């Protein structure tokens, strides 16, 4: 039996300890805000924050996060009003929206580490997150907006 802490709540798991965290979150814990896009750490759709770092849940196993604090989009902010979320809404970033929870988690992790990133630093930090709809210009501007105050 494994115990993991997600959004400050304890979950137990007695199945395969190697199960990717992504599928544990989505299919076992019912936290569907974290998305599957590639399964190979290539797209960032599954990004969650473990302790203070952005992590790809698709290549992280459940057993890897034992004793750590996992934050998903559902737990990023109690009312959904994290500066990044607000900036995203202000600039109407999403198109289909599917990549956006991963983008938001990546951006939130970036701002924790670097509260005032330059545009180049934003591009570098967000380059692991694909948006097939092509919302990049707005993502870049929204991260900048979140960092300067919404």
């Amino acid at each position, binding site marked *: 039996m494994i115990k993991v802490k997600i959004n400050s709540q304890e979950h137990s798991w007695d199945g395969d300890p190697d*199960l990717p965290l992504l599928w544990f979150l*989505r299919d*076992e814990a019912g936290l*569907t805000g974290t998305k599957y896009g590639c399964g190979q750490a290539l797209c960032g759709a599954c990004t969650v924050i473990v302790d203070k770092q952005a992590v790809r849940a698709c290549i992280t196993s459940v057993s890897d996060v034992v004793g750590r604090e996992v934050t998903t989009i559902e737990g990023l902010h109690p009312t959904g009003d994290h500066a990044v979320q607000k900036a995203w809404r202000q600039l109407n970033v999403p198109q289909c929206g*599917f*990549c956006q*929870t991963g983008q938001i988690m990546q951006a939130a992790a970036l701002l924790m580490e670097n509260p005032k990133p330059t545009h180049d630093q934003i591009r570098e930090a967000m380059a692991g*997150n*694909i*948006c097939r709809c092509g919302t990049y210009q707005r993502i870049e501007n929204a991260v900048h907006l979140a960092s300067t105050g919404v």
Partner: protein
Amino acid sequence: MNILTNPKRLRGFERHIKVDNVSRRSILKGLGLAGGFVLAAPVMSRPGFAAYQTGADKMPHGTVVDPRVFVSIASDGTVTIVAHRAEMGTGVRTSLPMIVAEEMEADWSRVRVQQAPGDEAKFGNQDTDGSRSTRHYLMPMRQIGASARTMLETAAAKRWGVPATEVKAVNHEVIHSASGRRIGFGELAADAAKQSVPSVEGLKLKDPKDFRYLGKGQIGIVDLRDITVGTARYGADVRLPGMKYAVIARPPVTGGKVASFDGAEAMKVSGVEKVMEVKGWPWPSKFQPLGGVAVIARNTGAAIKGRNALKIVWDDGPNSKYESVAYRAQLEGAARKPGLVVRKEGDVEAALKGADKVIVGEYYVPHHAHVSMEPPVAVADVKGDRAEIWAPVQSAGGTREDVAKTLGIPQENVTVNVTLLGGGFGRKSKCDFALEAALLSKELGAPVNVQWTREDDVRNGFLHTVSVERIEAGLDKSGRVTAWRHRSVAPSIASTFAAGAVHQAPFELGMGLVDMPFEIANVQCENPEAAARTRIGWFRSVSNIPRAFAVQSMVGELAHATNRDQKTMLLELIGSPRIVKLDSVKDLWNYGEPYDSYPIDTARLRKVVELVADKGGWGRSVPKGHGLGIAAHRSFVSYIATIVEVAFDNGKLTVPRVDTAIDCGAYVNPERIQAQMEGAVIMGLSFAKHGEITFKDGKVQQGNFDDFPVLRIDESPAVTNVYIVPPGPDTPPSGVGEPGVPPVAPALINAIFAATGKRIRALPIGKQLEA
């Protein structure tokens, strides 16, 4: 509770009454919305009415102009408006209801949007495809809103005993200004429900100068908050009690099937519950499943791990020799010989012979995969002769029909709930994944989620075609183009539906080949044969991608050959402002629209070129190593022109700036048009730079974003500027979702030529610029 919050109950009130007006398939249906807007209003036929004609009524099930189907008002004043088209990122789930709210004077903050299940008899055509939603539904949605407003006004006038002409709906209330009385929509709902639906001819539409929402762009999409907090529901987010999770190993070669398999190792994987063969259809299989071996588990991760442990022997079938290098050579061979003539003006052969100079360009665009961020996925719950589906499908009505046919049950027994689509791009016009889930749920006797992995999506999809476009342009001594021969060779989408389809269908020929708008005396378009070796499908912008790439690259080549500015050359070729006549083209495809309302108007094409040149600073001096390229293309009956600036930094290609101008006629939400154009630029740059699907031994050689890369933020333009042409008073709405894509690649290629003198004729650019 508003009845529309429960689609199952809503269906119970349905009565199928069709009224077919010979000229117009507008269907009216009796639908009583108890506690909602209209109770048992009489069903009546209305002849067609529209300020302009569209092809909407030629679509299966046409349009439905009936407020009782689309609008309901609860007693607390909440207005519920049905969105019957699929939301894949274009904003349609917001913009169509916004049109209704505008006309009925509803306050947008009190409107909720209800997604319609698949039911075209009730809602009209739902096939969200072809950049059609706004152009087909702007007028019907206005009429629906105006009908609802009229019924509310009539009810208020009756209540007050005053003539209806003295009252007016304004922002969620009806007002009688003479007496100062006012009453809210909620309070009027029950009475309004008793009014008869006014005739479409008698409706008074709002004067556009009074619009509060239309054309303003101040309203965010209805799902904005849900998306940013993770509660927006996509295909894989549906949870049902007892639901299983499955993945399927499908034949790696199109037309292949399972010879034998061994699931013993898969069954040992923790969480795997079952391994079974699933039914496939022989090629060409339309939208039917490919078949294979399914692994069913308690979660998707276990199912994937189980699938990795399967041992399967495949019978590869007739396409096991498909190989991309050889196929390209075959297409090039065909393009160098005469083919089926599909447009002919003058005598191109003689004109080319007599030309002072002939410029030849042969362009190649490979297969491409949609790779929407959400791979195909569907949830199905089949019990006895009833089926319920939850899926991100572009065509809810078509999915319902296909599920019914595939399961052999009546359509009335099938409910298709449309979730949000995590991108569509044409992939989700095909409902094969929903059919797989339905069949598997039936076998299992349990609800099931069938998830495609990214590898499945890349290897088993419906690819963008592969094509060779060969253009020969003859110039006279003065540098005028007098002859134009364009041969286009590509396997057709028709091959997915019928064996032996070797020619392009009219709808493909009409996407940038026979509709070429240049003013040239001798023109011939030909379509040599090409047989498909894999499933070909619609990809955002479809055949416009290779055609615009070829035609607009050739414009750049001609500018260079005649030592002229690209834009000058482009405008000279477009020629005088006129309506293009295409008398020699049989079955001209005009995106399904009547040519009278949507002709090829070169004045509009010239205008977007001038606009983008003006705003985008065409001709500005750029630093060394930079270059500007321009391209313009009409598609989906809209006009787009794009300028790309490239820069080479130590040999590395970057795009500092893109400017794009669109004329899409009358429009609803310019903010989303801008978003679509921004996205189109990224998609265009993406396939121009990177995207290529290749085959060897009949199998796709790529599988994920490592070997099939798409554009990322660090390669995206520093700035993309979008300019929208304000519509003329009578300009009907035209497409937005797709037409932004085609000009991007040729503008980029022309810019690269300007910067480096290197002419790229085959996409993707890949390593071609490395010395």
